[in-house]
C-alpha cells in the first residue's frame, strides 16, 4: 500500500497525472441572428436538419442547420410574449415543444411549424413555472416539470393531466422519453433519477447520487441514460433498470447540459463554475466506451448547446446571444 502511494506521489511530482486530451474544434460559421435578438438557448432536431432557439424577445426562431455555412431562418413562432423556459424535440423529430415560465405548453409540427396544441398546466389560478419538458415520440404525451413540484404527464390532444409522478419533494431538472416511447426518465432535485412507464407508473429508481443531475438523455438506441450534474460527473445508467453502468471521472465543474454526437457514442457536456451557474466552465467530449473525456477547447466558453446527429457540428448559444457552428474532431 505504501509503495502504491509512493508511485502516486512520484507521478504527481513529475507532472504525470492524467490529463484530458483536447478535441479539435473549429468554428465554421455563425447563424445570422437579427441584430436586436439574443438567443438564450436552443435545441437541434434529432435528424440534424433544423434547430429551434428561444430568443430574448420571447419568440421561438427555427433555422435550418447550416450546410456549407449557409442557413436560413425557416420561421418565427410567437407564444404571445410568454417567457420561454424549456424546449424539446420528440426523439423522432416530428414534434417540437416549448414550455413557459407561466405554465403554458405549446407543441408544433417540427417540419411545418403548425401549432398542434397549446394549453396551460397551472392549477388554482396561479401560474406555475415549468423548468423542463419532454414529448413522447408519437406526439400523444408531454411530460413537464413544474417548479418545486413533481413532474406531470399530460395528454396533448385532450390537454388533460394523465399523471402526477412520484417525487417526494422538490421538482425536476430534466426529462426525456426513450426513443421507443415506452419509458420516461426524470432527473429530480431530490437527487434521484426515476424511470416511469408510458402511463407514469414508477418502474425504477437510481438513488446513488448525493447531488442533483441537471441534464439527462437517453442514448439513441434507448439502452442507456446519460446524466450529468452537480456531482461534476457524467454517469451512464441502464435505460431500463436504472442501474449504474459506468461513472466517468469527476471534473472541476458541474455539468449543466449534454448533447449527443456521432449517434450517441460521444456526448458533449457543458458546465458551470462553482462560483455561479452563469459562469461557463469546460466543455468536454465523452466517449461512452469508457475512455477518458477530451476537453473541447476554444478561447470561448459555451453556455448552452445542441449537436447534430452525425456528429460533425456542435451548435452553441454564446454569451453574446449568437449561434456558432463548430466542427468537432
Amino acid at each position, binding site marked *: 500500500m505504501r509503495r502504491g502511494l509512493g508511485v502516486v506521489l512520484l507521478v504527481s511530482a513529475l507532472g504525470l497525472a492524467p490529463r484530458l486530451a483536447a478535441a479539435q474544434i473549429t468554428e465554421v460559421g455563425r447563424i445570422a441572428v437579427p441584430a436586436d435578438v439574443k438567443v438564450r438557448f436552443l435545441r437541434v432536431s434529432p435528424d440534424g436538419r433544423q434547430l429551434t432557439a428561444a430568443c430574448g424577445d420571447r419568440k421561438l426562431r427555427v433555422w435550418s442547420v447550416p450546410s456549407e455555412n449557409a442557413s436560413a431562418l425557416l420561421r418565427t413562432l410567437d407564444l404571445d410574449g410568454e417567457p420561454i423556459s424549456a424546449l424539446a424535440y420528440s426523439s423522432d423529430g416530428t414534434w417540437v415543444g416549448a414550455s413557459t415560465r407561466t405554465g403554458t405548453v405549446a407543441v408544433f409540427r417540427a417540419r411545418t411549424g403548425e401549432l398542434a396544441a397549446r394549453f396551460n398546466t397551472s392549477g388554482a389560478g396561479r401560474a406555475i413555472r415549468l423548468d423542463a419538458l419532454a414529448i413522447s415520440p408519437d406526439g400523444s404525451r408531454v411530460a413537464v416539470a413544474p417548479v418545486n413540484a413533481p413532474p406531470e404527464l399530460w395528454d396533448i390532444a385532450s390537454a388533460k393531466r394523465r399523471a402526477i409522478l412520484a417525487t*417526494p*419533494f*422538490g421538482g425536476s431538472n430534466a426529462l426525456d422519453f426513450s426513443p421507443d416511447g415506452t419509458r420516461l426518465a426524470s432527473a429530480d432535485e431530490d437527487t434521484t433519477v426515476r424511470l416511469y412507464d408510458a402511463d407514469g407508473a414508477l418502474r425504477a429508481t437510481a438513488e446513488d447520487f448525493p*447531488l442533483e443531475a441537471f441534464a439527462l438523455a437517453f442514448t439513441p438506441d434507448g439502452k442507456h441514460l446519460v446524466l450529468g450534474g*452537480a456531482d461534476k460527473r457524467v454517469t451512464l445508467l441502464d435505460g431500463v433498470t436504472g442501474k449504474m453502468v459506468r461513472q466517468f471521472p469527476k471534473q472541476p465543474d458541474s455539468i449543466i447540459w449534454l448533447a449527443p454526437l456521432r449517434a450517441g457514442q460521444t456526448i458533449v457536456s457543458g458546465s458551470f463554475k462553482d462560483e*455561479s451557474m452563469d459562469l461557463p466552465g469546460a466543455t468536454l467530449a465523452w466517449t461512452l466506451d469508457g475512455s477518458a473525456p477530451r476537453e473541447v477547447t476554444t478561447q470561448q466558453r459555451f453556455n448552452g448547446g445542441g449537436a447534430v446527429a452525425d456528429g460533425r457540428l456542435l451548435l452553441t448559444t454564446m454569451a453574446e446571444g449568437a449561434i456558432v457552428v463548430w466542427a468537432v474532431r
Partner: protein
Amino acid sequence: MRSVRLSRRDLLEKSIALGVVTVAAGLTPGAIAAAWDEAAPRPRTPENALGPFYKKHAPDTRTLRIPGDSGMPLAVSGGVFSTRGEALPEATVEVWHTDNRGRYDIDGYRYRARFKPAAGGTYAFDSIMPGHYPDRVCQRVHYLVTAPGHRPLVTQLYFATDPVFEGDPDKNFGRDPLITTRELVRPVMLAGDPGDVHAVVTLDLVLERL
C-alpha cells in the same frame, strides 16, 4: 393610521427586544414562543424552491460555524410543528447555505447540516450569515423538513436586513422573484456585546399532515 398585525411570535420577539418581557438565561425566543403557542393550530409554512445544490447525507450537527469562519455569526431557532400545533420532535431538519462570499460547498459539506429537533419540537443551529450567490438575488438558508405522516416542507429563510430590500422588506421583498411571500423574510436581531455581535433569527417550520 396604518394598522400593524403582529403574530404572537413577532409580538413576543418585540417584547423581548423592548425589555417588556424578561427572559431567563438559557431560554431562546424560539423555545419560549414554542411553549406559548403549544398546540394552537398553525398555518403551514410557505413553500419555497428547493435548489440549488441540495446534497444528501449532510452531517448530523447544529454547529455549522467553526472558529475563524468569515461572516457575522448567525443563530437560527424555531419550532417544528404540525398544522394542528403539535410539536414534531421526530422530524428531520436539513439546512444548507452559501459561505459569506456566496459560494455553496458542492464538493464537501460546509454549511450543510441535518438534525432532529429537541423533545418539545424546538430547533436551533449556529452558522454565519450567508453571502449572495450570483444566480440568486437574496441571501438565504435552504430548509428541507421531513416528518413521518407529514408532507415534506421545502422552504427558505430570508433576512430582513438583506441590502437588496434597502431597509424596507415589506415593500421590496418581491425584488427576488423567488420570494413569493413576505412571511419568509424574517427580522434579524443583533445580540451579544460589541466584541461578539451575532445575528439572531427565528423561523417556525409547520408541516401539513398527509
